[in-house]
């Protein structure tokens, strides 16, 4: 059951016994090849080093960090008066430059040692990676467990023709499932990708290999609608304040802005400023979109691997074995949905979500694109002729709508009642505020409640279980029925009275669980039993039509 077997722990014991104080590279180099003794490629038992230019990369990064820290300090020291150096100013400058040089040279030196001590080998059975200057760390992955080889190159690496390679197994447990080679030459990166993912293939005549989707520049119109825009706008405003503070000019900036709005009232000024920030954010979002999705294409490669390539400055290549794929998720953020568009994420095992946003882009299959395109691509990715994300869904009972309306009322009522209570106690201004708030919030809440109800739906489409929910972020998941590894059924006291329940299909892929909220009790359970034959059936009671419907529910599913 243990993924790595006893092997790595033996190695670790060896490593610690040799001790951090006595690093002897020679013995370390000769020992491990003796274990399986089969050199595969290159010299020295197949052991390879990272690209030597790693040192250069580190030096360059540290130089920019040093510059980034030193420059503001320098400006602070000289008080904005550029190099008006007294004797003390000279000392400060010298210290600063010395510290900067120490940082760069020291960092590069450590990186050099690191590079000396880092080796990797693609063996017949395992991929091994040895790292560490003081504490030698030896890790290995079984080749048959490798599920992804992802390449990425930021602009610096691209200039040097290098890439960063992440080799992943898709194990959920711990952070030990990924080996990172940073950096190797691009040719070596491509070689690793083909060698590690290349497997004997079963030819598929129906579903084509090659390009499944390609970017259409017109899709950029959805970029300003992303939630990124306001965030970037806020960040831009913050950055202006921060930089002006470095130069001791924050007050001037505020004054300058104030002067622009001399003749206008405060509310207008606020609105204009917010709009400016929003527009700046939208422009920023366009820029981000171009950087992220430039030259995007989704391909199916020989051997059942999906590959996404994209990026303007930082080039990324994400490969995903189709064996890992358990479905897709079609996501429609509210604003994007208004324009009839959707994006597509993969539901695959081994994209650990505890890493959070860091790896959010690893599951991304398609940027926001017109809904029909998203549906088509979903069908192509899943090798289905009828795309499951577009399947007609069974709506949920009216009681689900009533629940959503009640939540909406509650969400509006709590602040409103609080305001009224304070208003009666303190000042009647708050009463007007409460009235205004209710007048705005109530229709909005009701609208979203009804929209949330309309979003609800579930169905079985071929080999896929399809479930949709959400309003601000409507998500339609199409999950392989064979990928469901358990059910959780939830029912609160209120739900029981309304004859509803929430079905949660647990799976090894994606977020680990996909919910069908507020389905009708009988219909939902029958649906769950049909979706995964045999799993739920033994625990169900079918009353009245029990005798006839049970075999029907359990048997006639192989559609």
């Amino acid at each position, binding site marked *: 059951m243990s993924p790595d077997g006893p092997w790595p722990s033996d190695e670790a014991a060896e490593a610690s016994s040799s001790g951090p104080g006595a690093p002897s590279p020679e013995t370390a180099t000769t020992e491990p090849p003796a274990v399986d003794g089969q050199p595969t490629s290159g010299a020295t038992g197949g052991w390879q080093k990272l690209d030597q230019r790693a040192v250069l990369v580190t030096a360059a990064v540290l130089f920019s960090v040093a510059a980034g820290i030193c420059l503001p300090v320098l400006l602070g020291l000289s008080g904005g008066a550029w190099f008006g150096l007294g004797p003390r100013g000279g000392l400060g400058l010298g210290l600063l430059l010395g510290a900067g040089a120490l940082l760069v040279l020291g960092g590069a030196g450590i990186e050099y040692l690191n590079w000396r001590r880092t080796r990797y080998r693609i063996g017949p059975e395992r991929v091994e990676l040895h790292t560490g200057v003081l504490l030698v760390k030896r890790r290995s992955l079984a080749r048959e467990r490798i599920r992804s080889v992802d390449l990425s190159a930021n602009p610096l690496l691209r200039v040097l023709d290098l890439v960063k390679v992440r080799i992943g197994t898709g194990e959920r447990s711990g952070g030990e499932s990924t080996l990172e080679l940073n950096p190797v030459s691009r040719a070596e990166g491509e070689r690793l990708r083909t060698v590690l993912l290349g497997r004997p293939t079963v030819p598929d005549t129906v579903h084509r290999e090659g390009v499944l989707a390609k970017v259409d520049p017109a899709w950029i119109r959805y970029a300003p609608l992303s939630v990124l825009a306001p965030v970037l706008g806020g960040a831009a405003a913050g950055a202006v304040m921060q930089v002006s503070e470095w130069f001791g000019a924050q007050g001037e900036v505020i004054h300058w802005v104030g002067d622009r709005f001399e003749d206008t009232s405060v509310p207008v000024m606020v609105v204009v400023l917010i709009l400016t920030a929003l527009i700046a954010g939208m422009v920023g979002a366009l820029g981000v979109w171009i950087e992220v999705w430039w030259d995007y294409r989704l391909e199916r490669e020989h051997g059942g691997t999906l590959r996404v390539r994209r990026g303007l400055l930082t080039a990324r290549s994400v490969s995903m074995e189709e064996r890992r794929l358990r479905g897709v998720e079609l996501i429609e953020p509210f604003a994007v949905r208004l324009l009839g568009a959707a994006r597509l994420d993969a539901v695959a095992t081994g994209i650990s979500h505890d890493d959070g946003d860091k790896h959010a882009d690893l599951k991304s299959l398609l940027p926001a694109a017109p809904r029909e395109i998203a549906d088509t691509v979903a069908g192509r990715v899943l090798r289905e002729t009828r795309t499951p994300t577009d399947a007609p869904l069974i709506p949920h009972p009216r009681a689900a709508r009533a629940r959503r309306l009640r939540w909406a009322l509650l969400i509006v009522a709590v602040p409103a009642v609080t305001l009224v209570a304070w208003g009666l106690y303190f000042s009647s201004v708050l009463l007007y505020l409460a009235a205004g708030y209710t007048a705005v919030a109530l229709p909005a809440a009701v609208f979203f409640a009804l929209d949330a109800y309309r979003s609800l739906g579930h169905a079985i489409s071929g080999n896929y279980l399809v479930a949709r929910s959400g309003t601000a972020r409507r998500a339609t998941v199409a999950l392989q029925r064979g990928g469901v*590894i358990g059910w959780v059924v939830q029912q609160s006291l209120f739900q029981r009275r309304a004859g509803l329940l929430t079905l949660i299909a647990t799976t090894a892929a994606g*977020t680990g669980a996909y919910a069908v909220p507020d389905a009708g009790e009988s219909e939902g359970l029958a649906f769950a039993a049909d979706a995964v034959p045999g799993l739920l059936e033994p625990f169900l009671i*079918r009353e009245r039509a029990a005798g*006839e419907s049970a075999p029907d529910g359990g048997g006639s599913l192989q559609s």
Partner: protein
Amino acid sequence: MSEGATDDGAVVRLRPPNNTLNGRVVGWWRVQSLIGTASVTAVLAVLGMLIDPARTWLLVAAAVVAALGLLEAIVVPGWRFRVHRWEVTDEAVYVRTGAFWQEWHIAPMSRIQRVDTMRGPLERAFRLSTVTVTTASSRGEIKIEGLDHELAAELAERLTQITQATPGDAT
């Protein structure tokens, strides 16, 4: 097809799992609940003693917490005991938990990756154990609390045997 059962007008329900927990679990839950209540009440009461201006409010809060906690300790464990049930067949583990919010968990044997038995200090005093069944899903964990510890050990043993005998890569 999927709505077939309801088209017939059949009412589909989940049947309760076969086995109840050990009766001692009620005592264990009650003690846990009382310890929680007591610690919160104590903190509030001590603060009430120390902070003069807010004394009344803090002491009232302490009293309210104590009263609610006591009520919970009296009512909820019995309720939970009636809801909590479990069952292990050759194909699946089936557990019902909760009180106000009820949850039914079903995990097929072929997908079970790990079976753990755990006993906390308080649980040990009641001679109870918790069996945790883990699947490849991060959300698919099933806990059976409050089993007699001999029964729990037996169950874990049996589950491990069945899972090892069942083929499949659990994902």
